[in-house]
């Protein structure tokens, strides 16, 4: 795989998968709107709403590799003629804001799904919060995408400089980098690393027990009881996404040029898919005391546990394999 990690390939990858948080987000948002409007049953939610929430969660997760390949693409094209550097910086900063709001929307969507699994109903407050956050992130994503297009096609914007200056819908990724790596901030990186290990451990513990149950161990525990632990896995995910993104923004080139980072992202997507599976999978929910599970759940559990250990392995090996740091 290491010979695939060339700047040109990574730019191409960024241009391919950026459709998840743009086109994909529009589809997820429309699904959510239709599910809200069409829902006539006040007691049970139709299946459309959890579907919309699941798609939204998936897009929020998929946006991680989209954001991280973005800085790889920047490294690939920044020296080419005709590239607008201010547009590139503005694209990165507006994409960061859109990314943050989309992750919050993904979190709200996940909470809604988790509640739906237990009660067959998404609380209206969570539906509302998810709707607002998804709408906001769609708006910010449109700004980011628009400026992104102008990197190669400045003619899109009437006056690129003015347009970029006007995009107040952004947060400063340079500011994050300064906080993590700036002079006098030597304590920040080690503290974030410690938090990253705590988050990993929390997520792993929940994932281990829940998957082992579905693989046929701990049969005296009904799965719905373990379902209550899942928010703690999501807390670990959240802590690690925040700390991980801060590492990434502080030293992007240490990651974008390292093959282990891309392996880590791939396994991370599998681990996140497992979290969605543990949250909504019908066969899992029906696993009561003493119920023996199907070979399908055993296979999924095995893949998930191996993937999570692989995420840890790739992350731990970042400084030793590849060329980071």
């Amino acid at each position, binding site marked *: 795989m290491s010979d695939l990690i060339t700047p040109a390939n990574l730019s191409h990858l960024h241009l391919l998968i950026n459709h998840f948080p743009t086109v994909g987000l529009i589809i997820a948002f429309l699904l959510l709107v239709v599910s809200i409007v069409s829902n006539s049953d006040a007691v049970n939610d139709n299946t459309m709403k959890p579907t919309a929430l699941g798609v939204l969660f998936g897009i929020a997760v998929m946006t991680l590799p989209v954001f991280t390949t973005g800085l790889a693409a920047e490294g690939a094209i920044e020296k080419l003629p005709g590239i607008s550097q201010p547009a590139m910086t503005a694209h990165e900063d507006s994409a960061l804001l859109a990314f943050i709001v989309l992750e919050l929307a993904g979190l709200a969507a996940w909470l809604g799904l988790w509640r739906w699994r237990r009660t067959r109903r998404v609380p209206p407050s969570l539906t509302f919060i998810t709707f607002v956050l998804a709408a906001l992130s769609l708006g910010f994503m449109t700004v980011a995408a628009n400026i992104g297009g102008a990197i190669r096609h400045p003619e899109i914007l009437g006056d690129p400089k003015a347009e970029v200056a006007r995009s107040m819908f952004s947060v400063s990724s340079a500011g994050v980098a300064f906080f993590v790596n700036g002079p006098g901030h030597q304590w920040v990186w*080690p503290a974030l*690393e410690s938090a990253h*290990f705590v988050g990993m451990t929390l997520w792993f513990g929940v994932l*281990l027990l829940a998957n082992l149950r579905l693989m046929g161990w701990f049969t005296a525990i009904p799965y719905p009881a*373990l379902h209550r*632990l899942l928010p703690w896995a999501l807390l670990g995910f959240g802590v690690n996404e925040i700390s991980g993104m801060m590492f990434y923004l502080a030293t992007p080139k240490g990651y974008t040029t390292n093959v282990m980072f891309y392996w880590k992202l791939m396994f991370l997507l599998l681990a996140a898919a497992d979290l969605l599976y543990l949250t909504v999978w019908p066969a899992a929910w029906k696993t009561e005391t003493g119920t023996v599970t199907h070979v399908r759940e055993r296979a999924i559990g095995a893949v998930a546990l191996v993937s999570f250990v692989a995420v840890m392995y790739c992350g*731990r*090996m970042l400084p030793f*394999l590849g060329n980071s740091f």
Partner: protein
Amino acid sequence: MTVLHDSAFSTWLREAETVWAFPTVLTIHTFGMMLLVGCAWLVDLRLLGVARTIPIGPLRPLFRIMWFAFWINLATGILLFIADPERKATSLLFGFKLLLIIINLPLLIRLERAMYGESPEPKEVAGRTRQLAAASAMLWAGTIFAGRLLGYM
């Protein structure tokens, strides 16, 4: 310590140009950490009132996993010490990490005894057991922080 530091094995662990030396030992140590503390936090969370519908009895195998992971980490921890004995032996942070573990191990044993000592399964988790769980969970968090910060001393 200097003799240990200059021994062939210590030098190999520390300086060998292969991922099978220091990086692999460190990664196995990290794996043991997430296995041991991950399971410990599950038990602690349950005792502290999270997911109360999980029956406590069937959780007992988690303690076997914890001890398995503990021995892995004792072994890899000794190897990591051998790789860098002079700085570790004089490091306050390293001493602090050891202290946290030495306090926590008896808590782990007492926790298992409190949960499974009396039959049948108690309906309520005793307040004292909850305090043990809270203390143990925080000590594990402190151990992770101290261990991770050791990499930056």
